[in-house]
């Protein structure tokens, strides 16, 4: 077994003047900290600390209450599922992808005028007034309206066959230049599906989607 001493010979070191100056300057500039966190002098007294703590607790409580209020209102703000929409699915009608895309749109139903809503309600109540299938429509001479660019190719005879369905919407559909608002008119425009092939090329797809879908479904 070897014997030895663990004690090392400790040298005596003398600091140079620069190091001593630097240590003294640092020590003179040293300020006590509280647990590693510098506490401002204004918060040094116990009363000030109590006020700060109370304010912090109040702020946290108010924040939690505001968050709880927001969370409780979140479900009420959700829009209700559309009860009636432009593309109402009727029993027996096949569903296409584009129609399914249109059906839950609440924006379109919001923009319907009162006359259009009444027309749709009447359509639902009285399916007998529904336009006959496109295949049974006699081939009437098609008279395009003046603004074919809108895509509404409904002939006068076709509109006449639909009774009052197009009273409020047909004019809107004719004068419209292809935006979403003429979807109501096109929705009841069952004849448009027949010759919708030429209309679909003249304008955007969205405006004639209702008529085209009904025509193709028939």
């Amino acid at each position, binding site marked *: *077994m*070897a*014997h*030895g*001493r*663990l*004690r*090392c010979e*400790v*040298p*005596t*070191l*003398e*600091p140079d003047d620069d*190091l*001593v*100056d*630097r*240590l*003294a*300057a*640092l*020590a*003179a*500039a*040293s*300020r*006590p*900290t509280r647990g590693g966190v510098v506490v401002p002098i204004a918060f040094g007294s116990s009363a000030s600390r109590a006020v700060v703590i109370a304010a912090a607790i109040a702020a946290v409580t108010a924040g939690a209450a505001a968050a709880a209020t927001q969370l409780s209102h979140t479900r009420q703000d959700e829009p209700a599922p559309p009860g009636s929409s432009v593309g109402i699915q009727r029993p027996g009608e096949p569903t296409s992808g584009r129609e399914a895309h249109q059906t839950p749109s609440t924006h379109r139903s919001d923009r319907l005028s009162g006359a259009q809503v009444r027309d749709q309600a009447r359509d639902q109540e009285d399916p007998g007034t529904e336009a006959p299938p496109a295949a049974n429509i006699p081939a009437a001479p098609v008279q395009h309206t003046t603004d074919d660019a809108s895509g509404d190719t409904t002939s006068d005879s076709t509109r006449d066959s639909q009774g009052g369905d197009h009273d409020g919407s047909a004019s809107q559909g004719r004068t419209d230049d292809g935006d979403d608002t003429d979807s109501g008119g096109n929705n009841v425009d069952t004849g448009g599906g027949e010759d919708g092939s030429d209309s679909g090329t003249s304008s955007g797809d969205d405006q004639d989607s209702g008529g085209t879908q009904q025509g193709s479904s028939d």
Partner: protein
Amino acid sequence: MTKTVGGRSRDRPISTVVAADDQTIAQAKDGDHAAWRALYTAHAGRLLVWLRMFPSGDAGISAEDLASETWLTAAAKIADFRGSTGEFGGWLFGIARRQARNAERRSSRRRTSPATTETLDDLLHPLRAHGADTAPDSDNWIAWLLSHLPAREREVVSCLDVVGLDVASTATALGINASAVRVAHHRALKKLRALGVEVS
């Protein structure tokens, strides 16, 4: 008066001496040059020896650099210290231990030590490679012995036996209580005896 704060953190001193500063410490807090010179003369030598006992294996980290950083940190934080000149040693060694640990962490993250298969073992175990064939009582032999101990026991033995700190200062330096220091010291000496080394 001693206030005991227990069970918080291993790095936090368990017992904090709340006492009036002695004259040297009070003058050092005021930025007195003579007081700092006296403190440096009393503690710098053994601090350097103690830091040399824990080679990091990185040539970019020297014990002298760590000692200088320790003194600068101590001067910047001297306002937080309460105690005597003797207790200043334990506080100073605690700063040095944290400095060494931070340097080791930095070194391990940025390690770019080129090594061959012949020198790889020397890099991994720098003391085991060359300490066994050195003469007893030399610094390399002591470092070789300490390299066989776990980290905590190595630190305790180096503080108590190598540089001669007392138990209270060792506890302050290592952030443990005095009982843990004694237990670790007892276990370390037992392991050294098992190695065939009788330490006096």
